[in-house]
């Protein structure tokens, strides 16, 4: 049994178990889910420990350099004149996927612990939760575009129901908006995927293939194929490869989300229950960043280079626009949702710089944001569960009433605003270093982008500290009066157990960023090199 396959499908096994169990055992579902995620975490940590580094394990565009690979023929159809259809079950990881897997596995554990708040229809919730878990892991491991797309679409279904059934007041609206928004992106991705399939042939078998790694090699494109680098085919008057890149980019940019494709995020977050918010912010957004690296940039490196300026610009706009919007929010959860937009802007800026520093910074930012946004959304959930309100102006002086809670809020806020010692600082600093260096290394991004990005760090201090001042400090006064005062008890042991690992990870990665950099470095260098060569 391949360890990756095990990692991907373990949640489904447990999910089936939950479905088969009688409903009177419903109290045990959450423990089963917790067990599933813990097993998954253990597997991913084992892979992290056994992950081999070195120039020979760069991955990216060399199939042989991926690790824990499994490749099985899946759908091989003889289509007569049209050739042979070749879809493989092909999974494997390199330095780009590994940190995402470990991070997602941990976030899933946290999300499970946050699911204690779910009270209705537990069987459905946990079954869908585990299905989502499988799809997420699958996306990070898939190296066959068809498989990737399958997992990618498979995420939507559970999410739609998780938001639509267990969400807030306007949950149906939010679920539909989220679903259609993402579907809009992925439907066009399907077209590009088919175009790529028809353009690329497997050099060994000679048949068309969905193999992502082979799509990265220009030599595998048939002459005259629509996405061939040589043929210069056009779609609607635009170069086909540019169209392909843009379509894929839009699909992933919706996930990241990149301004102006971000408006699903605040709605979805505000309506989603806490565990789903955690998964959304912690894991789903990273699939966007991961997809941009693994699919967009790797399959269309030429377009990535020529369009880097615009990508960087979108990154900077996201950073500043998200931060300013966060400053304008009254709803705590919405504020954090916009801060996610701002922080994910750094990811795009770093990737667009195409320097080793920028890409490493972006990777670390994704991991760090995974932990920190989980922490932030969990913390919002704590208050919301107690009084069903999260308007910043309805609270004052929480610090006196809930000191432990406030301590964790301060850790999460300061870590998010990039206090040195926490992971976000190293990530954001090196993203900016990479963006600035870009001009002299590869001439892609102008110097000013990095400087503008730095202003985002200033704004993040403004919105987080302002929130702290308004909600947590000052004398105690609540909109709900005495009733709230009684309801707002300090965090429980379970909540502390949930928060501590996240805080520790943020601190650990801030003090020893090498924990991430060591495993990603070879892949990042290979990737930067690959983009440079084209």
């Amino acid at each position, binding site marked *: 049994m391949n360890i990756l396959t095990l990692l991907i499908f373990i949640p489904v096994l447990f999910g089936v178990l939950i479905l088969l169990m009688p409903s009177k055992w419903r109290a045990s579902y959450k423990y089963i889910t917790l067990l599933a995620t813990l097993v998954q975490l253990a597997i991913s940590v084992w892979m992290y420990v056994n992950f081999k580094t070195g120039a020979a394990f760069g991955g990216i565009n060399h199939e042989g350099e991926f690790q824990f690979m499994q490749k099985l023929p899946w759908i091989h159809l003889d289509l007569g004149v049209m050739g042979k259809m070749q879809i493989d079950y092909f999974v494997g990881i390199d330095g780009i996927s590994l940190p995402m897997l470990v991070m997602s596995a941990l976030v899933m554990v946290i999300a499970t612990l946050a699911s204690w708040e779910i009270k209705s229809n537990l069987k459905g919730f946990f079954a869908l939760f585990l299905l989502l878990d499988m799809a997420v892991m699958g996306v990070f491991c898939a190296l066959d575009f068809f498989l990737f797309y399958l997992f990618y679409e498979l995420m939507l279904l559970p999410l739609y129901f998780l938001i639509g059934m267990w969400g807030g007041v306007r949950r149906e609206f939010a679920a539909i908006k989220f679903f259609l928004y993402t579907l809009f992106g992925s439907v066009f991705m399907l077209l590009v995927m088919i175009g790529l399939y028809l353009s690329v042939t497997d050099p060994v078998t000679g048949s068309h293939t969905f193999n992502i790694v082979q799509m990265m090699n220009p030599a595998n494109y048939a002459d005259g194929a629509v996405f061939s680098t040589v043929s210069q085919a056009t779609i609607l008057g635009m170069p086909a490869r540019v169209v392909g890149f843009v379509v894929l980019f839009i699909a992933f940019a919706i996930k990241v989300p990149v301004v102006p494709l971000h408006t699903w995020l605040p709605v979805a977050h505000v309506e989603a229950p806490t565990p789903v918010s955690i998964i959304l912010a912690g894991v789903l957004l990273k699939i966007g960043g991961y997809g941009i690296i693994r699919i967009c940039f790797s399959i269309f490196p030429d377009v990535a280079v020529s369009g880097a300026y615009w990508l960087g610009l979108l990154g900077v706009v996201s950073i500043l626009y998200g931060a300013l919007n966060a*400053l304008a929010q009254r709803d705590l959860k919405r504020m954090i949702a916009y801060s996610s937009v701002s922080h994910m802007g750094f990811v795009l800026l770093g990737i667009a710089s195409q320097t080793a*520093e920028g890409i490493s910074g972006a990777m670390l930012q994704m991991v760090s944001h995974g932990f920190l946004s989980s922490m932030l959304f969990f913390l919002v959930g704590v208050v919301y569960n107690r009084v069903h309100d999260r308007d910043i102006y309805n609270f004052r002086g929480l610090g006196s009433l809930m000191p432990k809670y406030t301590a964790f809020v301060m850790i999460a806020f300061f870590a998010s605003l990039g*206090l040195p010692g926490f992971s976000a600082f190293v990530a954001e*600093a090196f993203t900016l270093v990479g963006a600035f260096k870009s001009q002299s290394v590869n001439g892609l991004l102008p110097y000013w982008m*990095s400087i503008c990005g730095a202003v985002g760090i200033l704004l993040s*201090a*403004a919105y987080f*500290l302002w929130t702290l001042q308004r909600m947590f400090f000052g004398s105690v006064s609540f909109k709900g009066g005495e009733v709230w005062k009684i309801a707002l008890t300090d965090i429980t042991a379970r909540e502390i157990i949930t928060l501590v690992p996240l805080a520790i990870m943020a601190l650990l990665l801030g003090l020893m960023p090498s924990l991430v*950099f060591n495993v990603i*470095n070879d892949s990042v260098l290979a990737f930067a090199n690959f983009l440079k060569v084209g």
Partner: protein
Amino acid sequence: MEKFIPGTENDLLLYTLIAVFAPLLAAIINFCLPANRKHAGWVSTGAVLTSAAMAAILFIHIWENKTFHVQQLWFGIGDTKVFAGIWLNNLSVMMLGLVSLIALPVHIYSIAYMHHDARFNRYFTYLSFFCFSMLALVVVDSLILFYAFWELVGFSSYLLIGFWFTREAAVQANKKAFIMNRIGDVGLLAAIIILFSHFHTFDMVALFGEDGLVANAAIFNHLWIAPNSNLPVAWHYVVYAGIFLAVAAKSAQFPLHSWLPDAMEGPTSVSALIHAATMVAAGVFLLGRVYPLFTAEELDAFAIIGCFTAFMAATIALTQNDLKRILAYSTISQLGFMVMAMGVGAYQSSLFHLVTHAFFKCLLFLAAGVVIHEMQHIKEENKLDINPQSILYMGGLSGKLPVTCIAAIIGAMALIGLPGTSGYLSKDSILIQAFEWSDSKGAYFKLVPITALITALLTAFYVTRLIAKVFFGDFKLSLVNPNLKFHISDGGWNYVLPLIALALCSLFPLFSSNWLQYEDSWLFEGLGKIGYADTESVYHSLIPGVLTASSLVVIATAFFLYIRSKASAHSGPLFRVSYNEWYVDKDYNKFVVQGVLLLSNALYWFDRNIIDGIINLFSSITKALAALSAWADRYIVDGVIYLLTVLVRRTGNFVRMFQVGRVQYYLYSMLAAVLILFILKSMI
């Protein structure tokens, strides 16, 4: 692993690490202690005592002897290796000694000062964490680490300003302090990023050390040239601007000075340590570290800004009534002197003033703390509704608080710069060199030293006003309230001992055997000769004489004004400008803060109505199209089908009329058909 630590240097490394990490350990211990244990104070004090001892050993080894630099790989990113290490030279061991030496009396003082606070051990957690960050800041060798501790210092200051977090003013102040400092941090970060991409290293020794990369990088033909990279010279100015912002934020220079007076919301012991003696000097320290970077014009700009800040702050201090606020503005003013000194090339005078100022300003704050503490007592005992920090209620306290009074007077003399104090040595050295510097410049540059001279006299005035209003004359509260009970004293040894120690350190013997000549000071000599021209100009005898004489006149006048004639001038536009702190904060609030909020609200409106509006428009269009096609489907597509069926039915019904089963009808119809056929045929 790349280690280059030969035998004996291991010890130096060990001492440094102990000095830096002892306070961190104390912070962790105090954090874990159960709430409100009084051991916390001694844990922290012990840690800082350890640091002081280690600093002393390091000082003996390093001072005027050698530099010490070790580093260790921290992490690699791409092909870049980032090192973490320690760089000890005269500057850093001086700061190491200064910080731990000032922190020690402040810790002892705090044990008494914070005794009744419910969050006693939290206070010492923060205080120790501050000491850790500050001590680390002065010894690290990498720009990344420097930035990290630079910001951690600001963070611990945030925690301590907002220590009493239920007070609205305190939490407003700490937010403001952190955000204004963040402006500086972003500047510093930008500077670091540019320096790194230009020189490919974060190592401060390689960059700013003797014969370092920065010193060797030439500016030529509008290009800033480094070994492997050329940047347009504009980026040199951006680096300068970034560092300027960093210095202005941390050392409270115009235009980023306004957080410091508000920071006085923190406990007074904190103000003494952080917002007077150590952290605010970090900006000047940064200037000292990166000094080789600046060109002559850039240094001139520092001189002008520093001089302006010094003057502005001094004018504001003239009219304030809050005891701590006066001292805060005086701190800003003195920091302005230091920055100006850096600008005029008086590198060692600037750092010399940094050291002397740290002692006497800390002394003044601790004395102020005693006064405020006792005023608070009176307030509580008599249930008065007064601000215990306002000097309007004070007066005549010299009899009640003799030690505090003498200590404050010594601090005040040093601040004014009267002979016999340390302040005299350092301030005069700055002024003399400022005049020498202006000689080599254009006529307008004379304004800088002259303004500085005026500022020194203003200092004499406001300091005298402060001392007179607090310690001499009549006790104002007794005048309005003759039955006032007050039992006040200097307090226990925790208060008295730090005051005496710091007072002694504010006198000349610590720094020089010669009480008139700053050149003879060992500290001044030890800081090296960077940019120092050893001239024998007329200023060396002129300035001290003129300044001392005129200061004495000003002191006498001020004393007379406030004690004898009890002057209270409260009018005039100049008074209003000064009293309202040059309207800086009001304007910031009106333009910057409101502007950003307005922008953010506008963008949120844009987000909801335009961006999301477009999305919603799409969905509305889709819905409308769907409705349209549903209509078309029902009335056109289905309509046609329906029409067909209706037609068929009608036809059927019509034709059915003929099928009735009677032969006569069939005959009639056949006849009719034949007739019609016949008629049609004949017509054609």
